[in-house]
């Protein structure tokens, strides 16, 4: 059992360090814009769920999805380059932080539309069922998406058709500046999921191992055709996007919740249980730090796209004509 914890710690630490570097990249003025949604403080959920998933499983994420992607095998270099809007990024710099994807690790795409990527996993689940593949597909989304009707349509379809699908809500208590209390009357979201016929569980702990054992059965059941819903309660340590300082939040609340840190908790547990020494952890942290520094360098040094890239990938078999060309055809060169 304890062997997991080292892994878990490493995953969570990599996520956090990556996000810190994204922040640095932003400060250096090297990111493509400021619509960057960091998941610092929210590392537990993606980590334990990712661990419960198999290699051929797939997933979609919301706009705050770096952590999930990393946990599932995303390459920090290509991620960082994408966030920088560079040619060597995952999506040639055309998708950016909010629309990043990697089909090779089953990342069917991040989505900047709250709830937009949820029905995708229903369709993926239909495929796996149709082809009798042992895969599942997991939709990650925030608590805000609990108020998007498409979630309930999708839950209903998944339950109706016994699809290998999991809906995973990373409930960080806020949708931008709106606290969850101001968005819903009833905070037991498992009740919603169950009423549509899903397995459901909610996890509120700092202990990633405990969380893992709680959510694992939901994932396993999904694989055998009983779709599930998982809520991970956590807290968004910093602002909504890179420019937001969360003036709408109580400072004491922020302080309190930032103490509730799953990474600190795991570190302590590793030491207390004599799994890793402090030194070993420092070494690991250092490795991670170097890895992520490299990602920054990679992103900064990566080359910009040729503007002709604008016209590629709209269709599989043709590129749209540029407006300039169209105009030339009308009034000449």
């Amino acid at each position: 059992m304890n062997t997991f914890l080292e892994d878990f710690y490493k995953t969570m630490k990599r996520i956090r360090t990556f996000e810190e570097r994204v922040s640095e990249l932003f400060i250096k003025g090297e990111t493509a814009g400021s619509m960057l949604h960091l998941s610092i403080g929210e590392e537990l959920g993606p980590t334990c769920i990712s661990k419960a998933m198999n290699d051929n499983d797939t997933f979609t994420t919301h706009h705050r999805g770096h952590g999930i992607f990393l946990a599932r095998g995303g390459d920090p270099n290509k991620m960082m380059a994408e966030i920088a809007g560079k040619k060597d990024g995952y999506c040639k710099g055309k998708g950016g932080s909010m629309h990043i994807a990697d089909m090779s690790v089953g990342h069917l795409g991040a989505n900047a539309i709250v709830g937009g990527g949820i029905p995708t996993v229903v369709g993926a689940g239909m495929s796996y069922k149709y082809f009798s593949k042992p895969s599942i597909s997991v939709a990650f989304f925030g608590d805000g998406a609990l108020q998007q009707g498409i979630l309930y349509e999708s839950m209903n379809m998944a339950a109706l058709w016994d699809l290998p699908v999991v809906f995973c809500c990373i409930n960080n208590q806020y949708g931008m500046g709106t606290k969850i209390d101001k968005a819903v009357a009833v905070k037991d979201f498992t009740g919603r999921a169950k009423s549509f016929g899903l397995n459901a569980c909610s996890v509120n702990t700092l202990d990633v191992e405990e969380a893992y054992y709680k959510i694992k059965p939901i994932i396993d059941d999904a694989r055998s055709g009983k779709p599930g819903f998982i809520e991970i309660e956590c807290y968004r340590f910093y602002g909504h996007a890179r420019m937001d300082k969360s003036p709408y939040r109580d400072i004491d609340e922020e302080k309190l919740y930032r103490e509730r840190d799953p990474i600190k908790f795991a570190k302590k547990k590793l030491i207390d249980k004599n799994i890793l020494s402090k030194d070993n952890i420092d070494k690991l942290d250092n490795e991670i730090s170097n890895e992520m520094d490299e990602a920054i360098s990679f992103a900064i040094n990566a080359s910009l796209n040729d503007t002709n890239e604008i016209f590629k990938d709209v269709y599989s078999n043709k590129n749209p004509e540029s407006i300039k060309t169209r105009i030339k055809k009308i009034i000449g060169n």
Partner: protein
Amino acid sequence: MSDIEKDYFEEITYRDALRLAMHDEMNENKNVIIMGEDVAKYGGAYGATKGLLDIFGENRVIDTPISEPSIIGASVGAAMTGLKPIAELMYVDFFGMSLDQIANQAAKIRYMFGGQTSVPMVLRAQGGTGRSGGAQHSQSLESWIMHIPGLYLVMPSKPCDAYHLLRKSIQLDDPVVFLEHKMLYNSKGSLDKKNIDAEFGKASIRLEGNDITIISYSRMVNIAEEAAIELKKSNINAEVIDLRSLNPLDKENIIKSVKKNKRALVVSEGHYTSSVASEITSIIFEHCFGDLLKPVIRYTAEDTPVPVAPNLEKESIPSMENIVNFSKKLME
């Protein structure tokens, strides 16, 4: 479902042509599935999928709950993971609630993800007036779709094109919005499965003529043809162009014909403003500037919601008589 073995039909309905196209593709490619409201047991609100459940079973012809955004969203996910879904949206009017999945997801996924994946799906829907369905069941919303890069847009008027273009749509690696017209399902024409004239972006010249070019698509092509026949009586030879697909659009043949005839009328059942008709009108003016003897006229549905009362509904869209009148006026 009889006649599935035949390759040539002297006369077949538009509905049956669609059904055969789906049948033949499903036969050849086991990854093709159909999903939508009442497409299986009921056979589709307009009957286009009737009989397919019996042949292909409920794993491939799937009745869904009434959840349009998720039907289309699930098709997107299915398309990204190996299936070839044909989703049916019962009325184009339901684009209103589902355009996020059509225009923000299906249309943009390939682009946003840098070409990593495709969304090879077909979204079939039907629109138009003729059944007193009122403002929420009679629209022609192709302009919304045509405006969005990333979506093929196909609107055939004849059974043979419906057959071949639907098959090609299913074979394509991109999302296709395939729009039928509620008053076309019972219309008839021939179908030769072996003789494929239809291609995306290739208009068909339904009638040749040297006096005026009438450009149209979907049901309005049939009205334009009637008008052309009527115009012959006054010695006016209209060339009737059936666009068949709006994206890609056959600019070349539009321009060629109008350069020849120097007069053009664009006919569409959509609204007038900021529309497919505005687009075609612009293209003609831009490229035939100098050639035109008269301004291009766009003749469309009124810029009002569609009323239910049959007399009003009929008056709110283009008529054969007025196509004739406007054409004559342009010939003066």
